[in-house]
């Protein structure tokens, strides 16, 4: 999986992107967020409040119950504030 981070989530994690091999037990966005939090800090603190965590899979907004695969580009970011 190609993970991309934006805004204060990018700053909190300290990276704009990283590559991660999808663990077999991770099948949904929620599983991925839980997996990242299980890695400890800084993920645990940055991704704790799920209401502020939005996700796009392959550049399309998705809900947290969306299925993911190891080929996906997965972006994790706070609610958008353009316009």
């Amino acid at each position, binding site marked *: 999986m190609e993970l991309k981070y934006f805004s204060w989530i990018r700053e909190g994690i300290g990276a704009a992107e990283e590559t991660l091999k999808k663990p077999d037990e991770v099948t949904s966005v929620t599983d991925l967020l839980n997996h990242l939090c299980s890695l400890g800090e800084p993920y645990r603190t940055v991704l704790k409040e799920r209401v502020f965590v939005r996700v796009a899979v392959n550049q399309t907004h998705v809900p947290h119950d969306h299925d993911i695969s190891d080929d996906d580009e997965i972006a994790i*970011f706070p609610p*958008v504030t*353009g316009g």
Partner: protein
Amino acid sequence: MASISVQSEDFDIGAEIDALKQGNTSIGAIVTFTGTVRDVGSTLKTMTLEHYPGMTETELNRIAEEAETRWPLLGCRVIHRYGTLEPGDNIVLVITTSSHREAAFEAADYLMDFLKSNAPFWKKEQSATDTSWVDAKDKDSVALDRWRE
């Protein structure tokens, strides 16, 4: 038909209107919306806009295509800037053209509502003493409800 640009440079509203009018005399209504950097308390020095290259263009095209299916538009132009801007600078431009004003007004309103809630941009404000990310507003997601049948 819609034309989308995501750019750091400023835009020229008059030139953009002229380009849409060019060779299309069936246009009877042109609506423009311009969003600018606001500094209410004279404390803002700069605003920096981050975006998600690739998804930003895809999402803006998706929103514009939906507007074109809902209203009989003759033209649609969206420009959104990124990078570091100062108070008063232009951020976003939406222009819609149609034969009659209702379609142009409503489509421009729709485009801005969905752009604010779905286009992957994030604003960060820098004052003399502080730097902070702008929070999303609940009213932006509430605004989408009126477009759902």
